[in-house]
């Protein structure tokens, strides 16, 4: 079929026309694409560049190393140690359950940890590592490493964790750290982003908590490049954080260890203060616990054991516990009277065993009475009537003021948890708090440290140190931070008449050195180290008239929680005081029998810087002391090592 040339020509023209049209349209569209390209890549380039950077760059925090804590001799108290943990990345593991099962055959896994890990894994993105086991041994780490091919996504990691090498000795003073809880976060107004790191450790109790700001340090920042799945591809740059400040405390580990051991399993506490500087050399509360248990999370059973113990091991009784100071308060009453000029040189008071105060009979602990007593004898024998009489003359407000000058009823600024203020009541206080008139009977009660009076062992030690030095000594726990010495607690003069103070010290000396003194049984016979002290026995119950008529029930016959608290305060050496000590044995019975021996042993330990020689003790006690020393030495196997590097 031959085609018509004209028709051919025509169709060709049509085709060409339409080809140009279509080609033109195509080029026009290409031009439009070019414009779109120009719009995206030139006009909006900056905006998209920013978005691309946001896509790829992630900012991660580098947790700083927590500051370490040392005792006054540089002995580590709280340290960071490398700990190994096993983490798992869900994304890499594939079949999580199978891998966990295999891991469980190689390494011992805690049920609790596993459950937590499984929930965490479900919640977090698949590429984030989740801790499966913490504080695993190096052996477990190598087991995991060797079996890596069979354990996809399982990686051993190194991290820092807190350890307390001295264990239970510092449980109350230094406290412990633990993972940040939701509760902790809620407490803080604008939390440090570090706290958002899962399982970041912060101070929970004690010095760890109080010095958190200095110990924590500042977070470092690293910028990492991540891919679309969020996996870190490489590190772009990092700014190292600031490690936390090291804190040196005033406690002497050797002494602390001794005191803790000496208190044993009693519900008791003791404080030793340096009379020159106010340094707290020891502050122990018994029974105690191992703070290391809390670092990784204490088990429910262990925790219940601690909270349900009637001796309250978790409480730091040395600063939190407040007790009626009992007779240890008598120095304050006496000082108030002396400073008021109410006691003449030869003044005596007749003690018939009781004193009638506005129609109520106030008893002396000695029913038969002490007869004529002067200041020194009254303190030595702890005559109550003498102080009833003094207090009625001086008045409560002056006694209260004097108590506060000696640091009672005042919150001492030491970085421990829940430091108690105690109470040195005056008339206005009762009106304000109880809405009642202050009665003369209240004054009589307060004069012997009963009634409303409350003081903590720390306050009693401070009071004793102030009596011994005449200076307004304040307790100091932190010796230096990052090598910077903290202000000393030596303090200014109290501004009291030195003669009056000397009288008090002599009276206290008589308490523990005079044959008729209440603490004569706990004297020190080494002349250079003679101590002056005061016993205290504070009632925790009212003795009714009826009971008194029948005869007061002996402490040993009462249930534990109704027995008297036993207290003792002392300083030594008498001539040049170096240490002030207070001991409180909860429901321990009499101060002279339960508290004074402990205080004496602690004092000697402090003075000798080691186990004291038996020659310091009265001859007839030596066999018993020898046995006690042997027992304690066995209880503190590393005591010799601790003692050896004492400065």
């Amino acid at each position, binding site marked *: 079929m031959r085609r018509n040339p004209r028709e051919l020509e025509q*169709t060709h023209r049509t085709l060409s026309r339409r080809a140009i049209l279509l*080609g033109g349209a195509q080029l026009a569209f290409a031009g439009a694409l070019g414009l779109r*390209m120009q719009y995206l890549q*030139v006009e909006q*380039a900056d905006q*998209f560049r920013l*978005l691309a950077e946001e896509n790829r760059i992630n900012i991660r925090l580098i947790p700083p190393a927590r500051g370490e804590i040392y005792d006054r001799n540089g002995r580590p108290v709280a340290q960071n140690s490398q700990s190994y943990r096993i983490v798992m990345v869900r994304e890499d593991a594939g079949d999580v359950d199978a891998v966990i099962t295999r891991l469980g055959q190689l390494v011992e896994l805690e049920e609790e940890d596993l459950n937590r890990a499984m929930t965490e894994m479900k919640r977090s993105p698949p590429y984030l590592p989740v801790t499966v086991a913490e504080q695993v041994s190096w052996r477990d780490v190598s087991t995991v490493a060797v079996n890596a091919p069979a354990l996809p996504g399982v990686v051993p990691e190194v991290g820092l964790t807190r350890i307390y090498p001295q264990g239970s000795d510092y449980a109350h003073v230094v406290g412990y750290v633990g993972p940040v809880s939701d509760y902790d976060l809620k407490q803080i107004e604008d939390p440090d982003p570090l706290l958002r790191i899962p399982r970041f450790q912060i101070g929970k109790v004690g010095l760890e908590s109080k010095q958190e700001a200095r110990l924590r340090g500042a977070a470092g920042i690293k910028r990492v490049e991540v891919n679309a799945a969020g996996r870190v591809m490489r590190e772009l740059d990092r700014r190292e954080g600031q490690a936390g400040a090291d804190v040196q405390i005033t406690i002497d580990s050797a002494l602390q260890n001794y005191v803790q051991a000496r208190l044993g399993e009693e519900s008791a506490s003791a404080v030793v203060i340096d009379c020159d500087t106010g340094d707290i050399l020891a502050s122990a509360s018994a029974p105690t616990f191992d703070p290391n248990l809390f670092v990784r999370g204490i088990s429910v059973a262990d925790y219940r054991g601690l909270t349900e113990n009637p001796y309250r091991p978790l409480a730091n009784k040395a600063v939190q516990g407040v007790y009626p100071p009992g007779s240890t308060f008598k120095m304050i009453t006496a000082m108030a009277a002396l400073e008021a000029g109410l006691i003449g040189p030869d003044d005596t008071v007749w003690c018939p065993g009781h004193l009638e105060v506005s129609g109520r009979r106030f008893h002396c602990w000695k029913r038969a009475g002490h007869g004529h007593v002067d200041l020194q004898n009254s303190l030595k024998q702890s005559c109550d009537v003498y102080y009833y009489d003094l207090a009625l003359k001086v008045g409560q407000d002056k006694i209260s003021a004097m108590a506060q000058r000696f640091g009672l009823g005042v919150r001492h600024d030491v970085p421990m948890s829940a430091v108690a203020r105690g109470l040195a009541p005056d008339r206005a206080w009762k009106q304000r708090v109880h809405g009642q008139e202050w009665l003369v009977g209240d004054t009589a009660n307060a004069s012997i440290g009963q009634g409303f009076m409350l003081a903590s062992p720390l306050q009693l030690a401070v009071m004793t140190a102030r009596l011994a030095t005449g200076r307004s000594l304040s307790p100091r726990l932190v010796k230096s931070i990052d090598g910077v010495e903290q202000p000393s607690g030596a303090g200014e003069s109290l501004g009291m008449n030195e003669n009056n103070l000397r009288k008090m010290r002599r009276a206290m000396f008589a308490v523990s050195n005079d044959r008729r003194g209440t603490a004569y049984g706990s004297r020190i016979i080494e002349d250079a180290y003679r101590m002056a002290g005061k016993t205290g026995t504070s009632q925790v119950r009212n003795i009714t008239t009826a009971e008194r008529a029948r005869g007061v029930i002996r402490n040993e016959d009462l249930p534990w929680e109704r027995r008297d608290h036993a207290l003792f305060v002392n300083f030594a050496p008498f001539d040049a005081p170096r240490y002030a000590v207070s001991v409180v044995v909860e429901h321990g019975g009499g101060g002279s029998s339960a508290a004074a021996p402990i205080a004496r042993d602690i004092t000697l330990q402090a003075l000798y810087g080691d186990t004291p020689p038996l020659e310091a003790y009265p001859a007839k006690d030596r066999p018993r002391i020898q046995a006690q020393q042997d027992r304690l030495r066995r209880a503190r196997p590393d005591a010799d090592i601790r003692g050896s590097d004492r400065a």
Partner: protein
Amino acid sequence: MSYLEYSVKYTPTGLRKVLYLNWPLILLLIAVASIGFLMLYSVAGGSFSPWAEPQMKRFAMGLVLMLVVAMVPIWFWRNMAAVAYLGSIVLLLAVEFFGAVGMGAQRWIDLGFMRLQPSEVTKITMVMLLAAYYDWLPARNTSKPQWLLVPLLIVLLPTFLVLRQPDLGTAILLVAAGGGVIFLAGVHWAYFVTVITAGIGLLVAVFQSRGTAWQMLKDYQYRRIDTFLDPSTDPLGAGYHITQSKIALGSGGWTGRGFMQGTQSRLNFLPEKHTDFIFTTLAEEFGFIGAFSLLGLYALIIVFCVTTAMATRDRFSSLMTMGVAVTFFLFFAVNMSMVMGLAPVVGVPLPMVSYGGSAMLVLMIAFGLVQSAHIHRPR
């Protein structure tokens, strides 16, 4: 029918044909393919495997195929058009029954050495048959309705089969390319106006059918359209691709972030970075200059095709060449629109650049046809 009816005065023979090849077009194709190798090397993180090397081998094979096809006189191909078309329809049917499933659709037949996508082959055989049909059809019958039924069937049969796979992107390309050839053949304007109006009606119907028993598209196709219309509705889901693609493009700026420095592609923010989204990597790493250069090369290829088509007096050659140009244009226009957020993500590769065997080989064969038409044009 004889080719001599076009009063051929001179036809090159033997090796002389090589001299008469459209060399600029070949150079353009090599340039575009080289850009592809470079980008495949880059998205593999600076490695010839797994993409750049096979792609280079395939391109070499494609070049040989193109030359072989070019050497064969165009009238032979015209005579083979119907056979080729029927062959591709058989392949489409085969893929319907034996095809491998990938990306939620049946698309390829595994031939052992390569995965053959019959839908790609069909794009060219359909154009060939349409060109042959209009070459045969007397011009006066072109616009007569009864003579329009055959070309419609030629277009709609493969379209229907491809939609069943389901491959919406290819289906649209087939309809558009077929429509292009029919338009070039000189069919009356009125038909196109009618069809486009009907098309809009159909579009409305497609949307109206959503969620009903007679829903016309698969759910994922609807979702793609949704996210195209508003990517922000699903920034981490389906809209993620479009958003990330635009970020990659835009962050390239004038000169780009540098070869292998594109963070979006290197860090896997881009989906299918070696196939459908390879253009974003180019735009990110070589910026506006790089991206616009590729667009320029594509435009030049179109221009060469149009001039080749207009230079020949042979109707089959013209229609065939223009059909190839339209197909080629649709490839890059749809792909670029898609990655620049101007069209929904329908799964169309960037021609000669995206990793993939079938599309490249088919295009090379198509350009072989264009070359053959160029060599054997009536002079």
